[in-house]
């Protein structure tokens, strides 16, 4: 629909785009905050000696719990995180914060603060937490069919265990907030948050103020990926406490190491599964236990686990499926939202099982996967019909053909036969991703659209722009609804004093929800303009059309601005609010039944890899993607989301490895020790296509959500690596650790040594 560049593209290429920290530096009168971090994973704080810090010139304050006017407890679902803790819950947790005239001084001040602690026993791993019975939540379960009976009756039975790893968000702009007093007893918070309303509520609670005294504004975010959904609020709250204490503007920008050690990551999961299949590889039973590592506080872990339970089927129908999940509590940074929100971990288990069953039965994995795909008429394990399930099969067949899968499979077999130390592998995996917040009430959005007398249009909505192109899409929606050119519309910053009580820009829902809200507001304005256009054109209101900046009717055209002026002179309101609530969603968590999703997004990817058997080094040779975006609102932006999501998934599955040391300290604190996908990890041949004839009737202009689902396409790379490992090993299932780093691939080929190496 629109093929314009990103709405902020000019600002970005000229360096004029303002991020939070840029604004603070431009204003030039802020104090800067720096955290004093705990050196233990679990400890009681006995004493904080602020003296040495306060003695440094330029240090203005050391913020502690005593400075909090309201509540010291924050957290998105359960208020179980102390902003200034008297009991440290993870290594690196901020205990107090130093404010100084500049960042370097604040940092020096933080290093000078002395904290006395009583060290307490800590749970430093998921296994330790499970063994100790340490959990944030009671078990949640969803079941369909009689799994025990189906397993018992299955001709073939399999079992396994899989560990899914953490992932660092590594948004390039680190967490940042800038709080200014408004001079009237209120505060203006400029923040890099995906959830302005929650940041507003958090700041208000911490300051002990009603929400209307706190305005949160988001101009743009330098990458979020879920990492700024809940965890941006704490940084803003600390800055607000500092602002309340000193009366000065306060800016906080975590540097990379602080950001990595303080904030949570993608949830690691432990999955234990049993499956039953027929001789053709069709699954008849699937029984899974999932345990996610929530870290030190609950954060969003319960909802993340729920999405994992909803997606453990992958894109596959299983008549008897039972999944039970739980969130463990460890003394590690609190894990949080990350693109896919539990679904990638669950879908990885689904693919693990498909591949295991296929190789155990001596069948090609792509054949077994195809046999198990959802078909029209199928329902998920939570009872939701898989509407448009025929798209899965259509995508599968079209992609097999367009990627010349069979031909390449044969070529790879021949190539592998000719190469002893290098092997290639290929795999195709499907995606089915449910769209909507699984917490039903979050599926709402508001917007505000204004028309000025010159015909120019300004829109605001509840979503945040973090690079995903949301404002660009919304701009197109507003322009199309009002029939004006895109150059006539501007979408401006997200503000809680303009659009209240918004949901996070998360769950891939930004354009679905906010686009519908903006469209509603724009339709309302169009309705109000219609009689004035009709009067100018001399036709009936029903005969008027707005297009390309004009009102058309009775064979004539008048400029949009002229209609607006006529409406204004007739004293017509030219400001409208719009609201959207996704209809039809419901889920009964106790019963594990309902329709939590508005629709599903489908896709599939084929990946081909080459593995060096001597080192485990691997290369991604080629990728073919066919993905369902409905009728795209902005094809270039959707392509960017597909490619970017895919590569981020490749990172999670093949090179990004989060490691903690024996004290519970994060070892992989920066890009030097945490390997992110660079351009070298991306395939030279990366072919992305979107599904034709894919209108989504319920969504804005027939488009579908695009943020998270493509992340799951990267599972094809993991499965292709497994295929290459199998070429070294021969028939039978292949155990491959995740992430499939060169080291993990090496051990998958050669087998881990049974004994520990001798001590020297």
């Amino acid at each position: 629909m629109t093929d314009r560049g990103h709405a902020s593209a000019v600002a970005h290429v000229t360096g004029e785009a303002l991020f939070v920290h840029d604004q603070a530096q431009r204003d030039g009168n802020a104090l800067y905050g720096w955290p004093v971090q705990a050196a233990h994973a679990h400890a009681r704080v006995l004493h904080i000696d602020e003296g040495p810090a306060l003695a440094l010139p330029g240090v203005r304050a050391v913020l502690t719990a005593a400075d909090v006017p309201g509540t010291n407890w924050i957290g998105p679902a359960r208020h179980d995180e102390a902003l200034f803790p008297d009991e440290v819950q993870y290594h690196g947790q901020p205990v107090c914060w130093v404010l100084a005239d500049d960042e370097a001084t604040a940092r020096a001040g933080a290093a000078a603060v002395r904290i006395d602690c009583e060290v307490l026993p800590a749970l430093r791993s998921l296994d330790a937490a499970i063994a100790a019975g340490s959990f944030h939540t009671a078990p949640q379960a969803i079941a369909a069919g009689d799994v025990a009976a189906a397993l018992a009756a299955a001709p073939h039975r399999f079992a396994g265990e899989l560990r899914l790893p953490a992932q660092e968000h590594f948004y390039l702009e680190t967490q940042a907030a800038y709080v200014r007093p408004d001079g009237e007893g209120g505060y203006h918070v400029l923040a890099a948050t995906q959830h302005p309303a929650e940041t507003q509520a958090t700041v208000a609670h911490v300051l002990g103020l009603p929400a209307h005294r706190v305005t949160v504004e988001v101009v743009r975010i330098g990458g979020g990926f879920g990492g700024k959904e809940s965890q941006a609020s704490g940084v803003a709250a600390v800055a607000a406490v500092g602002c309340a204490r000193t009366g000065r503007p306060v800016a906080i920008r975590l540097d990379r190491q602080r950001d990595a050690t303080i904030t949570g990551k993608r949830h690691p999961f432990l999955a234990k599964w049993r499956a039953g299949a027929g001789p053709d590889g069709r699954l008849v039973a699937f029984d899974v236990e999932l345990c996610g590592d929530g870290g030190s506080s609950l954060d969003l872990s319960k909802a993340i686990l729920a999405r994992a339970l909803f997606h453990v089927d992958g894109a596959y129908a299983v008549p008897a499926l039972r999944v039970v999940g739980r969130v463990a509590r460890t003394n590690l940074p609190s894990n949080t939202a990350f693109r896919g929100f539990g679904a990638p971990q669950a879908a990885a288990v689904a693919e693990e099982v498909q591949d295991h069953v296929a190789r155990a039965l001596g069948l090609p994995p792509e054949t077994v996967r195809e046999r198990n795909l959802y078909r029209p008429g199928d329902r998920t394990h939570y009872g939701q019909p898989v509407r448009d399930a025929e798209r899965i099969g259509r995508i599968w067949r079209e992609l097999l053909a367009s990627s010349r899968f069979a031909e390449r499979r044969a070529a790879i077999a021949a190539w592998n036969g000719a190469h002893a130390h290098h092997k290639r592998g290929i795999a195709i995996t499907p995606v089915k991703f449910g769209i909507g917040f699984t917490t039903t009430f979050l599926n709402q959005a508001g917007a505000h659209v204004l028309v000025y007398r010159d015909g120019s249009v300004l829109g605001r909505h509840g979503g945040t722009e973090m690079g995903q192109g949301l404002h660009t899409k919304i701009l197109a929606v507003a322009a199309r609804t009002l029939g004006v050119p895109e150059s006539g519309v501007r979408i401006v910053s997200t503000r809680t004093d303009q659009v209240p009580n918004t949901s996070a820009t998360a769950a891939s829902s930004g354009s679905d929800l906010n686009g519908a809200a903006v469209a509603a507001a724009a339709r309302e304005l169009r309705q109000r303009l219609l009689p004035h256009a009709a009067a100018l054109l001399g036709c009936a209101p029903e005969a008027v059309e707005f297009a390309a900046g004009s009102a058309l009717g009775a064979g004539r055209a008048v400029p949009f601005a002229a209609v607006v002026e006529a409406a204004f002179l007739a004293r017509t309101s030219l400001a409208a609010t719009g609201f959207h609530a996704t209809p039809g969603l419901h889920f009964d968590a106790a019963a594990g039944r309902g329709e939590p999703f508005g629709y599903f997004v489908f896709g599939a990817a084929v990946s081909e890899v080459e593995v060096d058997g001597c080192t485990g080094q691997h290369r991604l040779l080629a990728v073919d993607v066919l993905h369902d975006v409905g009728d795209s609102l902005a094809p270039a932006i959707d392509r960017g989301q597909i490619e970017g999501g895919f590569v981020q998934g490749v990172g999670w599955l093949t090179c990004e490895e989060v490691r903690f040391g024996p004290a519970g300290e994060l070892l992989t604190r920066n890009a030097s020790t945490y390997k992110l996908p660079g351009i070298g990890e991306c395939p030279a041949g990366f072919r992305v296509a979107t599904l034709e004839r894919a209108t989504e009737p319920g969504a804005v202009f027939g488009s579908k959500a695009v943020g998270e689902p493509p992340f799951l396409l990267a599972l094809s790379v993991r499965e292709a690596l497994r295929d290459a490992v199998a070429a070294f090993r021969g028939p039978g299932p292949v155990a491959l650790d995740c992430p499939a780093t060169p080291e993990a691939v090496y051990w998958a080929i050669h087998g881990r040594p049974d004994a520990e190496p001798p001590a020297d």
Partner: protein
Amino acid sequence: MTNRQRTTILVNGTRYEREVEPRLSLADFLRHELHLGGTHVGCEHGICGVCTVLIDGRSARSCLTLAVQADGAEITTVEGLRDAETGQLHPIQQAFIDAHGLQCGFCTPGFLMTTLELLRDNPQPSDDEIREALGGNLCRCTGYQSIVESVRLAASRLRG
């Protein structure tokens, strides 16, 4: 702080003379002293490439360069790309817009500066050469495909 050193740096054609704390990075000098906010910092230890600027025509990490090391040098930042007189965007900037070579924009200035050096040294790079040249810049949003296309487009436009 003590021990400040007089430092003279030419940035985007303008000469700046400042008393500089010896440990101040060039990135912080540009951002804090000169208020040139287009040069971002991402990892602050030389990996991500977000802070890339040109020092005497060569790409360099401004987070790993001290401001005092740049004494007497000529620096080009993203703010110096567009035509100073007409304000017209540099073809590389326009190409990143037209070929959708950015999302959140935080890494963009670094990619632009790396590309500027690449296309000056090699006006007709192959895809492999583009990928090699950009190998030291990280982008967490795009998956890089559109960035390679942007560089390709810029190269073809610069050749005319």
